[in-house]
């Protein structure tokens, strides 16, 4: 059997990802679902539960039970997995579930990275919520940070389903990379003509944690502050002096109210930097893979950001694999560092269609990055975005619910 065409269905979840890949052959359709979730701050007009129902309907051949050959959860962020919390999934039989190595319960490194990320996210969330309830600039920035951070809180029901749910018989769970068991290049189950190149994540704490020490430091600093408390005196009471006494003694040393307020600002940690650092760390556990269907290449980079992209691009073996991609799932919803510039300028080629799942969020003005949007839609390249439905060749919209892009081989 040969794959005759590839239909990639991008569901308009909002700020999140849900892609159903349908490989049509003479005898039927082979299906892969890549992520299903939406960000708390970026819902579209479609309810997530109706998206889930649509996916399940699309995965049902007439007269048969719903069936998806492979479910991929690129990483555990809510905007990629929250849709798996719905019970409808229990009717769907799934062949395999692919997840990053950080989800593997028997992988010590992976587990420790995941637990550390989860612990940090929860602690920070608790602390920032407290800050956010106050008034003033610090509270405002804490509130903005909370919206980013919430995406990192674990959706237990969704994760439980990915790890142990779906219809019987039980799906096989595979974790990547897993050097002792899983090669990085392998064939799709039941489709030997399709080769998978698993490029990421990498088993390197430094790449995942953060390539940016500043952000990481903010996390540490916030934790530090949570422990310290400022109630105890620094010196014996006799050493302090009231402002009026000081003004009388030496007016030169007095700081005005405005000057003192300015100094307090210096004491505020950058909540957004801390939240963003946690967000990025999980993004960099994303599965990044290329499907090669007899030379036609599709790239799904999850939410890989700067650090992981950098590591992938630094490996010269990957260059060949990434050259002349026909389909690109835009990384991290089109954010400024969710796509590596060199991939776009030197490797992806000109005959490429990019699918960007995205919803405008007013406070995140840099998403999508205008430069990226330009580069992905210039000359012979096509960009399909989930928030706009203009007529485009080979793209069929079902209302505003799903865009289907067809590649005929």
């Amino acid at each position, binding site marked *: 059997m040969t794959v005759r065409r590839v239909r990639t269905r991008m569901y308009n979840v909002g700020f999140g990802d849900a892609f159903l890949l349908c490989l049509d052959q003479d005898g039927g359709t082979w299906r892969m679902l890549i992520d299903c979730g939406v960000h708390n701050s970026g819902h579209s007009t479609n309810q997530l539960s109706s998206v889930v129902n649509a996916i399940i309907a699309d995965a049902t051949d007439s007269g048969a039970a719903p069936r998806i050959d492979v479910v991929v959860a690129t990483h555990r962020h809510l905007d990629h997995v929250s849709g798996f919390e719905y019970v409808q999934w229990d009717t769907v039989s799934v062949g395999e579930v692919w997840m990053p190595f950080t989800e593997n319960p028997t992988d010590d490194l992976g587990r420790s990275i995941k637990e550390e990320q989860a612990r940090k996210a929860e602690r920070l969330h608790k602390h920032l919520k407290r800050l956010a309830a106050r008034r003033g600039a610090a509270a405002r920035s804490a509130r903005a940070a909370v919206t980013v951070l919430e995406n990192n809180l674990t959706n237990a029901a969704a994760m439980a389903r990915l790890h142990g749910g779906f219809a019987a018989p039980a799906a096989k769970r595979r974790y990547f990379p897993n050097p002792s068991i899983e090669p990085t290049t392998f064939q799709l189950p039941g489709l030997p003509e399709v080769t998978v190149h698993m490029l990421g994540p990498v088993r390197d704490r430094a790449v995942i944690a953060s390539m940016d020490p*500043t952000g990481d430091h903010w996390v540490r600093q916030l934790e530090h502050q949570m422990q310290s408390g400022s109630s105890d005196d*620094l010196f014996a009471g006799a*050493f302090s*002096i009231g402002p009026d006494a000081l003004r009388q003694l030496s007016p030169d*040393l007095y700081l005005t109210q405005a000057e003192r307020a300015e100094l*307090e600002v*210096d004491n505020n940690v950058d909540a957004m930097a801390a939240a*963003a650092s946690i967000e990025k760390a999980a993004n960099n556990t994303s599965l990044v893979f290329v499907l090669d269907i007899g030379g036609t290449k599709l790239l799904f980079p999850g939410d890989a950001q700067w650090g992981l992209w950098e590591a992938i691009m630094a490996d010269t073996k990957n260059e060949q694999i990434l050259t002349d991609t026909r389909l690109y799932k835009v990384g*991290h919803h089109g954010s400024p560092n969710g796509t590596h510039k060199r991939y776009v300028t030197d490797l992806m080629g000109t005959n490429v269609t990019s699918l960007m799942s995205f919803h405008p969020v007013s406070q995140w003005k840099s998403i999508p990055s205008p430069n990226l949007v330009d580069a992905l839609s210039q000359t012979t390249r096509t960009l399909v975005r989930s928030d706009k439905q203009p007529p485009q060749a080979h793209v069929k919209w079902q209302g505003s619910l799903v865009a289907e892009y067809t590649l005929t081989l």
Partner: protein
Amino acid sequence: MAPEITMPARRSLRAYAYDPLRADLEGTTTTVSVPYEPVGLGPAGSLIKVVDYDPVREVWYAPVDLDDPLVLAQDGLMPSEADPRSHQQMVYAVATSLLEHFEAALGRRFRFTRGPMEILPHAFYEDNAYYDPESRRVLFGYFRADRKHPGAMLPGQMVFTCLSHDVVAHELTHAIVDRLRPHLNDETNLDVAAFHEAFADLMALFHHFTLPDLVRRELARTRGDLSTAAPLVEFARQFGEASAIGSALRSGIDRPDPDALARTSECHDRGAILVGAVFGAFITTYEIRIADLIRIATSGTGELPRGHLHPDLVARIADEAVANAKRFMTICVRAFDYMPVLDLTFGDFLRAMVTADRTLFPDDKARVRAVLVESFRQRGIYPENVASLAEGNLTWPQVDHRERLPQVDAMIRWTAEDSDLSTRANRLTSRQNDRLLAIRRAELPRVARSIQRLISGAPVKFGFHPNTRRFPISIQRFHASFRPNQDGQSRADIVVDALQKRPDLMARAELDGTGIEVWAGTTIVADALGRIRHVITKPLARDANHPFRGVGGDRFANICELVETADAMDLTRAWTNAPDRITRAYSFAVLHRGRRGGAR
């Protein structure tokens, strides 16, 4: 009435030798000698004003009175972690001492832009300290030692960064550099921020050698082996241990690696390579300097016997170490007048050091410059566009301009007036000082205008865009310095900084909102007759016929690339829309905070 008692020349102030940790471990307190000046409560002197307000607890701490007879009679308060007044005293002592040595090296008096520099010894809760160029304050943090890995301290013990000699000297150096070269805050290449860090570390390390009792003690302990004299060559031990790094924060001793520079971008790590280059040369020249003393002491064998060194020998080699540190500090500081106004690279710094030193000491008898250049080479630091590392090629080229720099006499007069105010006491006490500065302020615009006319008359010659109507040239700073040269004569260097802003290029590259500005900048060095000797320029020359074409490569393209890389790495960018995103990310506060996260 009996005649007035003359003012003392010096004031002695007790301080922790390095930090309270070393004091606990080794019993090392010391006495810092600073120029005497009457000080107000704070202490508030002519250059340093300590303001002890704690914004975390919203508390003022009572200011110390250094002129209190009880304080004077015991060389200042005994260092104590529990008494904030001794903290104030220590910050004042270290800062004032550093400034004195800085001025000596600079060859002219130093003033901050707006009166004395304000220092807050207890400004925030964090394992950090920084200079804030916007409010122009130096802020020191305090923090609890790590509870799991507290080093040689109590778990959770309070650690004060203002009690670390090194941290005080480092942060104050940032403030001084900001005054001398404000445009070095424009992070236009990776070396700029790294230079700030390296230079501040170097000043802190060399400042150790201004305390001869400590140098003698360490050299006796290590039998003259300076590179193993940890307290002298390490930076901020207590700070490092308390933050669970398990060692000093940084060290002047490195392992030269010619490839390290290319793969290092974090500014402290990159700066450490520059520190290693300069400090490595310092150690090598020290060893050359003491070789004869060791031979004399060992009947010519040069092999030291086992056991302790003779105290006289220790004293002599300590003198050499102190003199060598002074020589190196001087070389580093003097380089400032020969540095480009902006977009500095490590290679530029080397060229500035070599040129400044060679101007005064053409012979290099002690081979200091030769060792320095070799030390840079070993760490892969090469200046761009030089034919070889021979000294003649490294020095900035001599120029032969027909034009003379105008108004040189005014600049020379100002420096002479300042130098005549031989002690700080005179400088501060008199309303003279204010009067003098008022007169000078009235003179400044005229001088600036005539220099500007000269440059605007031949902009291309000075590395600028010819259309000076559209892109006016501003004269930023101009001054004269006096320095003794090889044959004992005082030599005057006249230095002028000129700048030209290029909003057209900024608009083209969509740099608005990044905080990065595009400037061409030139340092002009002239002699006492106004003859222009060097034109050290950072042009934006893209025209093939431009005389400075190729100097520093295509700077504009480099700036655009830097912004692109910074954006790619900036993890908050997706979520915020803050102004000045690049410069904000590079600000001193973040840099210093960044270090703490990146240290492990």
